[in-house]
């Protein structure tokens, strides 16, 4: 490090620093505080009120303590949506995306494989298209008409056309979300797999281990960290999924695909119950916090 001494210049730098920092970082802090943090805090407050946008109660929002929370936690509707969200996250993010993403990462790490670029691009496509386009594409696949893509496929097996979104709505949205998230899992796992030293794999191979054993006993333990990080990230993202499902089902049929995000939207904006919607948002945040801490705990234990 060159150390030409120009003391006064150095001092000027240090003095300048104090002035510059707020100028440079200030705007970002302001924006984040105002549009990301403040709403979260405001939500907390609103959850304790009976704020509405229609009806006489709208003129004069009152503080109602934990009434909203007691309503929510005893409402089969809300508890149902929590459950559905849990199922949605478990099967699409934790199981579906992880398994298929790992599969893709492993397959595309094979040195002898040709056309990796093409395959990789194919897997990447569902992730990079906008949410609404993804839903639209699947709307045609799941079409109840006899010439819908999926119905055509099962026709080859001799089955009758099915109205998929009616008959098995949760399964449908789980599949769509898996489809959407494979690429992200693949990318994260590829990076993780790369960090596994070749020599270790070679050594265990020479010792006679099968591919499966190599994977479970050598690879997996070494990539535990990234895997948990991935699980954490995808859980967070999946809990926040709204458009993908809303576009296809609007929470229906009935409320069979009403996830917490849709419950919040419906109650806050279609029924104009701001207080209740905010309370539901807070519950969602708390659940996420608990999940996040759980993950971190698990990751620590392993590593």
């Amino acid at each position: 490090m060159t150390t030409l001494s120009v003391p006064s210049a150095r001092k000027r730098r240090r003095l300048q620093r104090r002035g510059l920092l707020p100028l440079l970082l200030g705007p970002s802090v302001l924006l984040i505080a105002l549009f990301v943090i403040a709403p979260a805090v405001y939500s907390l407050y609103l959850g304790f009120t009976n704020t509405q946008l229609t009806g006489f109660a709208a003129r004069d929002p009152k503080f109602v303590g934990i009434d909203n929370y007691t309503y929510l936690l005893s409402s089969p509707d809300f508890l149902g949506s929590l459950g559905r969200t849990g199922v949605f996250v478990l099967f699409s993010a934790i199981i579906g995306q992880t398994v298929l993403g790992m599969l893709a990462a492993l397959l595309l790490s094979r040195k002898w494989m040709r056309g990796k670029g093409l395959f990789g691009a194919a897997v990447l496509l569902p992730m990079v298209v906008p949410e609404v386009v993804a839903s639209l594409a699947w709307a045609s696949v799941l079409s109840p008409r006899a010439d819908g893509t999926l119905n055509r496929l099962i026709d080859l097996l001799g089955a009758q056309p099915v109205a998929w979104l009616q008959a098995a709505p949760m399964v449908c949205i789980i599949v769509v979300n898996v489809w959407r998230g494979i690429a992200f899992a693949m990318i994260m796992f590829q990076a993780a797999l790369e960090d596994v030293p070749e020599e270790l794999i070679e050594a265990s191979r020479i010792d006679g281990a099968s591919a499966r054993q190599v994977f479970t006993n050598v690879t997996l333990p070494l990539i535990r960290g990234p895997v948990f990080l991935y699980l954490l990230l995808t859980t967070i993202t999946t809990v926040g999924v709204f458009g993908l499902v809303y576009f296809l089902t609007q929470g229906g049929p009935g409320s069979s695909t009403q996830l917490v995000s849709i419950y919040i939207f419906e109650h806050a904006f279609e029924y104009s119950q701001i207080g209740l919607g905010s309370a539901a948002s807070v519950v969602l945040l708390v659940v996420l916090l608990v999940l996040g801490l759980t993950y971190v705990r698990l990751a620590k234990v392993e590593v």
Partner: protein
Amino acid sequence: MKRTRPFAAAPSAAFTRRGFLGFAGGVAATTLLTACSSGPSGSSASSGGTTTIKIVEYQQARADIMKKLIPQFEKDMAAQGKKIKVDLIADILTDAQFKTKITQQFHSGTAPDLIDTGATNIAGYAGAGYLLELDDALHEWSGWKTFYPTVKKVMKQPDGHYYAIPHEASVQSLFYRKDVLESMGISTSQPKTWDELIGRLKKVTVKTGEPSIVIPAGTAWGGGTWSEGFLPIVAGTGSTFYDAKTGKWKVESKGLTATFELYSELVDNKLLPVQDLLNPNPWEPTKYVDFVKGTLPVSAQGTWGWRYDWGPDGAAPIKDVQEKVATWDYPSLIDGTEPYSVGGGGYVYAVNAKSKSPDAAIAFAQWLASGKPLARQLVKTGAAAPRSGISGIEPYKSEPTLLDAEAKLKTSVPAPVGDGADQVSQAVQDATEKILTGDANGKQAAKSFAADAASLLGNSLVAQ
């Protein structure tokens, strides 16, 4: 050879001095541009003597007729020496989408001067203070005296004031396919009781293998479950649902339980199209496809069905609808009551409380609710006149079914409206949904409704 600036290629020009300034300038320009053009703001403006008012229509048929009426209004006003211009905002949406949107616009003060919406929505907006109180304007208007008492009653809000001018009255009845039932050999006389009607419906279902009646139910139908489905049935049971004097709702009663049990009975006998009712936009496969085809021959419906749904310009036209379709009053549900029809609101015009030109807006609404303009709208959308004196005006004069409905207004039962209707509507939707999914029978649904409604309404609105 070491490269000194690997990213000195053209695209990095953005980060040279000029580039950076240009970049920052671009950001600033975009910000300024967007700040200035922050979307159309809500209500009127006045410039050089011409007052401009805005009205929003969210149904195609209504937007179409409004487009034709506006020039006439502007001419009439000009003849009186008033320069008023009307801007029509046509944004085609479902009821639920419109409600969400207009509530947000009212809340942020960007709503137009006039809205045209169903009477059942007014309570919520009026309660929140979004609408202009019209008592004085109506009092001074000679036309108001000719409005039917039932219509006026429905328009009076829980606080005793008026906030909208009705331009339709509708009668809620059971529409049925006369041709289809006759060809099946099923009686088309007025069923006296629901048991009688259910007997006929069962016969139809046995013949077709399909559900035979559609009554709005569940959450997918939204507010319609309340206003077109549940409310008309409970209104004829004789039980008080909303007490206008105390301003409270009675969330448990014989009539309510009977209504929920009716739904349950219909579902148990497979007479309701349950799957369709659970899916988004449930009116499409039921009213617009199966009723038209004739496989679902009975539908709970308001007067507008004659034009808006099944008329020649409607969403799902039925050829010769006047011959093929007829109406029944609602059969009686509880012993001791008689068949009845429910008279209620149709659409009404309401003025934004924050409108900058309230007088012009009120003048327009009053003009629209009178004489030929009113007659033309009634025929376009299919509604009965809410006031006397229209039955002699073309084109309304030549619509026997609509004139019929107007006559019925005098004897129809009014539907209860009150503050908190939105919350009750939600509770009804949830409770009927449970019946559809098989999660509750009639009694259980009634109980769950009572608990739900009570907690949504809050203590002040529930009769103990």
